[in-house]
């Protein structure tokens, strides 16, 4: 079955150039970046990591005040405890992520050639658990988000370093993510790009649409909205939790967290922010 999938995706890649949709990630990145740096010519490139606050001066002050006593801090601490707590077999997450304390988030997601798929940090966390005989964690919030927040926090300051390998297989993943970003879906017929590329900086009702450039640098995020929805006030959520929310808002059925669809999207989406500084976890409305 896996072999068939490999052959099919390889075939697709052979056909793709003929159909005139040959992907060129580096050129994509240049165009993507140019769109935002021209649209928001007064915003320094690195400032896009601050998401909507890079283009919305009015709410920036309030947001910066939140950062004085960041609500994500206790969850980073929880992640720290989890990270260093021994599994039943005595090992810890450090056995899978030896460099986590120095920062590793900037290298995720990556394409695993042996496995033929994109591996995200959250996927790797659960695989580490499995390897050590532990049950997997849920992908959207809770402990997974805390661990992810801790690792993101430790990765602050590193520059995004996602590599798109030029194998047909990895390009198929990249293309799928790129297509997800630009394709309209759901009853409202909107794409990620409609809001966060073409209309970034515009207002949807009272909310300013954040630019897609710099989105991924500050995940996971603590959202006030999620905090209010949680009995314990835990507002932490992963990137795929947010993807699901976006899909639902355009009235499309969301994909599962860590589905091939969302991992593809993360691969494309994160690559677009390569070179931008990791500053997760972030605080958002």
């Amino acid at each position: 079955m896996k072999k068939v999938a490999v052959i099919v995706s390889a075939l697709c890649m052979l056909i793709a150039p003929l159909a005139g949709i040959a992907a060129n990630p580096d050129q994509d990145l240049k165009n993507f970046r140019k769109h935002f740096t021209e649209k928001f010519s007064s915003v320094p490139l690195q400032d896009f990591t601050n998401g909507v606050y890079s283009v919305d001066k009015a709410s920036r002050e309030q947001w910066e005040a939140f950062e004085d006593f960041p609500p994500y801090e206790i969850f980073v601490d929880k992640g720290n405890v989890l990270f260093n707590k021994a599994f039943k077999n005595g090992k810890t997450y450090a056995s899978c992520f030896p460099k986590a304390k120095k920062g590793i988030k900037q290298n995720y997601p990556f394409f695993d050639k042996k496995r033929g798929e994109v591996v995200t940090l959250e996927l790797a966390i659960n695989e580490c658990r499995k390897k050590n005989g532990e049950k997997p964690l849920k992908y959207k919030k809770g402990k997974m988000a805390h661990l992810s927040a801790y690792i993101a926090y430790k990765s602050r300051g590193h520059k995004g370093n996602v590599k798109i390998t030029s194998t047909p297989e990895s390009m198929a993943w990249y293309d799928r993510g790129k297509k997800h970003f630009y394709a309209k879906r759901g009853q409202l017929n909107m794409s990620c790009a409609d809001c966060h590329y073409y209309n970034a900086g515009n207002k949807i009702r009272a909310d300013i649409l954040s630019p897609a450039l710099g989105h991924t640098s500050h995940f996971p995020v603590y959202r006030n909205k999620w905090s209010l929805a949680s009995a314990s006030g835990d507002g932490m959520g992963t990137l795929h939790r947010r993807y699901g929310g976006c899909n639902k808002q355009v009235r499309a059925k969301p994909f599962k967290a860590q589905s091939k669809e969302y991992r593809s999207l993360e691969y494309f989406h994160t690559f677009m922010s390569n070179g931008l500084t990791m500053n997760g976890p972030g605080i958002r409305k």
Partner: protein
Amino acid sequence: MNHAKIFVGITLATVLLSGCANYGSSDNSATATKADFNTALIAANKSLKAAAHANYVWRDSGKILKKAAKAAKKGDFKTAVKLANKAKRQGDMAVAQSKDQATAGPQ
């Protein structure tokens, strides 16, 4: 035995006839039968399966179909058929959308 055969024949005929009546819009039909609902449900499931295959299912289609099943359970086949048809149309629109967006990329 004879009775049973006749009954099956009638049911089949009814399904076929009401199936034809469904074609187009039976939303405003004064009455609907369980057979009408079954026909509509099969069509809706087929359509939503195609949308799922295209990775393009809309958010509320499943919910609409659940509501349809609930109405059918209560014997309100008119509402059930109406909702199943709505879910089917959503599936069809989602499939059309996936085809329309097959070559989506930067403008």
